[in-house]
Each structure stands twice: as C-alpha cells, then as structure tokens.
C-alpha cells in the first residue's frame, strides 16, 4: 500500500515517469525486505532492454527525421492532391490522405503532427480554411500514425506482451484505414455544414509531373508495409531498409538532405528513442511490484465480480483508459497498464492479445488529443499558434469518430485480425 502512495505522489509531483517506476521499485524492495533483489536491480534495468524488436524504434525515428529533412513530406502532399484535391474541402482531404501515407513512414503521432502542421496549416489557411480547422484536421491525421504501421506503440506493446511485432503491424492496417475513412466522412459532413472552399484538380500534365517527382517518396511506405505484410522482412529489417531508402531519396534524388545535417539528426534520434525506450527499462524493475504483489490477480477478482462478459470488460477498460490517457502520456500509460491488464484479458476473458493490443493502443493515443495533457494538442497549438481551447473545439468531432471506431473494433474484433 505504502509503495502505491509513494508511486502516485511521485507521479503527480512531476518526476519523470521512468524514474517514478524505477524509484517505486527501489522503495518496494526496501519495504518488503526482499533485499536480495537489490543485487540484481542494476542488471534488471539493463536486461529489460535486451530485445531485438526494440531496435525498430530508433531506426523508424531516424527514417522519419531523414524524410523530413529530405523534402519528402511536401511531395507526398502533392501526390495526395492528385487523388482528392479537387473536391469540396479538397485540401482537408489532401491533409488526411497525406497523413495516411506519412503514417506508413513515421511511427509516432507527436512527430507526425509537428511535421505535417508545418506544411498543411499555412497552406489550408491560405486557401480559406479557418486556422483552427486546419490545425484540428492535421492533429486528427496524426492519430493515424500510431495505428498504421510502422507504429512505435505497437512495437512497445509487442515487446511487453511478447507478441510478434510484425503481427501487431499487420493487425493495425485495417483499423487504421477505417479510422482514415471515418475522418474523411467527418470532413465531408463538416464541409457540407460549413461550406468549405472547393479545391482545384491539377492538370494532366501537372499530375504526371507530381507523380514522377513523388514516386520515390511514395516507394518508401510501400517498401515498409509491403515488406512486413508479405513477410519479406522483420519490422527491424524493414526499418533498416527504410532508413537507407529515406537517405538515398533525400540526398541523391531530391538533393535536399545535406551531410552536415546528419549529426544533428542522429543526435535527435538517439535522444528521442532513449526517452521512450528507457521507460521500458524502468518498467522491468517496476514489474517486480506487479508480480510479487499479485496486482493482476487482485484486479481480476474485482473485475470478474463485475462482469464475466468479455464485451462489457473491454468497454469498461475503454472507458477507464480514456480517463488514464487524458492524464498520463500514452506510451508511459501503456507500459504501466499492459502488464496488469493483459493477463486478465487473455486468461479470464479469452481475448486475443493482438485485438487487446490494437484496442488499448488506439485508446491511449486518443489521449494525445484530449486535454489536459494531450501532447498532440500542445504541439499543434504551438505550431499553428492557436489556443488549445480553440483547437479542441475544432477537434472534438474527430475524437467522436475515433471513439465510434473504437466501439466498432470492440464489437467486431475480426476487423483487427482479418489480415493475419
């Protein structure tokens, strides 16, 4: 009990979450008198990371950084305008389609929102959309990033749940596309309501030029998804290939990437991946508390008294996690919660761990767009220079869509496993 008081006190005092986990574990060992664990504590910090799958995280982050510097984003946006640019509200669709393509390259919503907002928000505003709506569409598009592979949260879930990361990636494709379609439907409805400006179709000659210029960029997501889907490459291997292709495209085809940019890119990659992966090291020592205190067992007793229906269980969990996702960062929340809830879901309710993974990942990333601590909300409001309140007002229709998709996936879990 004491350890939990300390855990929440440190958490809410603003200690970095990784250290909250690491310190709580130390306190627990001390209180429980199980001092033999002190000897293996430093080793445990290390061994929690001995996992080949985690390598995908720095590699995909590097790919994202390289593509960003290499002028790929802009060309993908032009590509998207060939398909959907001419409709009423055309640029809003372009934003979403480009976000869908970017989601197949970048694995993190926060990264994607900051990249896309630089390109899309000024352009949409120039064509007569309100800045709030432009920001909201971009942030919503960012939600596709953690669902459509490659996805950082899926890598982490796979590592914690000991599931093949490739399977998680494949499972994310259909839900990601459903989410994208849902957002597009929402834009159509909003467009009819608010009378959005009609876009312009590019001329045939223009379209050909854009396609030729954009196809090297377009190849990268194809390589990533195709490699994983056809089982040609493991997620880590496809990440390595993606890094090379992003480098070659940016440096030698678009010629926007410079060698002198590389050290800074590498440094950012290293720091950003350390930020995320260190959480897993800390979670490994924190796992002692969960195991020795039989936390899943006691929560399971309480939950199974509440309901024996897997559906009710999942809906309850959804409700709970939306709350958690509002307060704690998605990845950190997942690292704390999955070891507790996954055994309950699989053992007591017979839920497929992959289905469970996709649902809680989508659920927790939704927290990126909800106040008070939605990182995505902060990024977009800073980048687009709109107040958080104003963005949130424009964004809640998209949050609604996400919740509907979440319920749909909970009720029809075959949508998640259909490609496996």
């Amino acid at each position, binding site marked *: 009990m004491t350890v939990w008081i300390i855990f929440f006190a440190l958490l809410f005092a*603003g200690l*970095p979450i990784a250290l909250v986990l690491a310190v709580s574990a130390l306190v627990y060992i001390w209180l429980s008198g199980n001092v033999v664990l002190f000897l293996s504590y430093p080793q445990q910090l290390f061994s929690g990371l001995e996992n080949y799958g985690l*390598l995908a995280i720095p*590699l995909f982050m590097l790919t994202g950084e390289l593509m960003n510097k290499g002028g790929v984003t802009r060309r993908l946006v032009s590509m998207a305008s060939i398909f959907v640019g001419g409709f009423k509200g055309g640029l809003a669709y372009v934003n979403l389609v480009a976000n869908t393509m970017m989601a197949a390259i970048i694995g993190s919503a926060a990264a994607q929102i900051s990249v896309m907002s630089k390109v899309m928000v000024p352009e949409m505003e120039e064509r007569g959309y309100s800045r709030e709506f432009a920001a909201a569409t971009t942030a919503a598009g960012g939600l596709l990033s953690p669902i459509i592979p490659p996805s950082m949260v899926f890598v982490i879930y796979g590592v914690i749940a000991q599931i093949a990361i490739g399977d998680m990636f494949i499972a994310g494709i259909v839900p990601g596309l459903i989410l994208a379609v849902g957002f597009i439907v929402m834009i159509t409805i909003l467009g009819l309501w608010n009378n959005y400006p009609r876009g312009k179709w590019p001329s045939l000659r223009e379209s050909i030029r854009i396609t030729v210029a954009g196809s090297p960029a377009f190849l990268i997501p194809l390589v990533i998804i195709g490699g994983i889907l056809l089982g040609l490459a493991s997620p880590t291997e496809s990440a*390595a290939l993606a890094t090379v292709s992003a480098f070659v495209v940016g440096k030698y085809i678009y010629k926007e990437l410079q060698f002198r940019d590389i050290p800074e890119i590498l*440094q950012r990659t290293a720091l950003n991946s350390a930020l995320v992966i260190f959480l897993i090291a800390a979670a490994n020592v924190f796992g002692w508390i969960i195991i020795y205190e039989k936390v899943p067992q006691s929560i399971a007793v309480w939950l199974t008294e509440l309901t024996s229906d897997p559906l009710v269980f999942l809906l309850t969990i959804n409700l709970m996690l939306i709350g958690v996702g509002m307060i704690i960062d998605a990845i950190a929340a997942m690292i704390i919660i999955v070891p507790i809830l996954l055994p309950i879901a699989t053992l007591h309710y017979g839920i497929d761990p992959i289905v469970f993974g996709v649902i809680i990942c989508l659920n927790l990333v939704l927290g990126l767009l909800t106040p008070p601590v939605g990182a995505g909300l902060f990024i977009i409001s800073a980048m687009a220079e709109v107040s958080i309140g104003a963005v949130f007002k424009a964004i809640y229709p998209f949050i609604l869509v996400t919740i509907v998709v979440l319920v749909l996936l909970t009720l029809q879990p075959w949508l998640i496993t259909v490609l496996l």
Partner: protein
Amino acid sequence: MIVRLSNFLKSAEKKFIAFLALVITVLALLNVVTRALNNALFWVDELLIYTMIWMVLIGSSVMVREKSGIATTFFVEFLGNRLQKLLAHLVDAVILAFSVVLVILCWNWYDLPTLIKFGFDTQQFASSTFNFIYQEPTTTLGLSKFWIWLVVPMISVTLSVHSVANILESLQNTKVESQQ
C-alpha cells in the same frame, strides 16, 4: 565546478549517443545484407542490442540533465507558484537520491574489494559471494558480460553529477529571484 563538469559530460554523452545511433543503423543494414546473401554474421544481433542499450541508458542520463523526460505535469499546474518550486526541488532531490542509491547498488554488484581480495579469481569470488557477475558470458561476442554491464555504473555516476548540477542551478535561480 560541478555544473561545468556536468555540462561537459552532457555534451560528450550527446556526441557519443549520436555515434551509437550511427553504429546501430550501419549494423542493422549489415544484418539485412548478410542475411539476404545467406551469410548472416552471428554476432551482429547481440552487438546491435547492446549498442542500443548503451545509447538508451546514456541518453537517459542526458534526459535527466535536460529535464526532458516524460512526466505528468497535470496536477503540478494547479498548484501555486511557491508550491510548484518546492515540488521541483523535491523532484531534484529524489533524482539525486535515486542516482546515489544506484551508485551504491552498482558498487555492491561489481564488489571490487572482494574481487581484489581473491586476487581477481572470479571462480572463488562467485563461490564465496554467490554473485555471478563475473561468470556470465555474452552469447556470441566472446566477452564477459560485466564489460557490457559497465554502462549501468557509468550512468549511475553521470546521473549523480547531473542531478547535483540540477540542484545547484535551481538553488542559484531561486536565490537570484528572491534578490530581485
């Protein structure tokens, strides 16, 4: 003095982890290429994982110095200015305490005095202490694993330096503010 040492360490750490990120990329590619040629190098997987772990752990030390770790600030923001400052000091103190405890744990883990007492005989060390740190090999690298694990004591020291520097800096800031 400590602040300067910490800043020096931080910039060295940042350069080093950037280099490790490069090593990871090159090794991962080497892995893909050699596997495609049906001539996989057996030691690359393990080396890749260790390189990543070094990058992550050293990166976490930088994270503490730059205060860039993911934290829950939701409740702190409700508090008054003075309480916020107090909590920030508390957080700094907890990080320092953690770092020092980690130094001690690593010291006990590597247990150099006992090792020296046995004249660096790792066999005798293990059988008398039941601490098998010097017995564990790496799977493919042909190196004892305690060399690889050295990154943990290393960051326990840099974390201590960084957290002292953080405390000194924030005390300095509070002093300057109260004078104004």
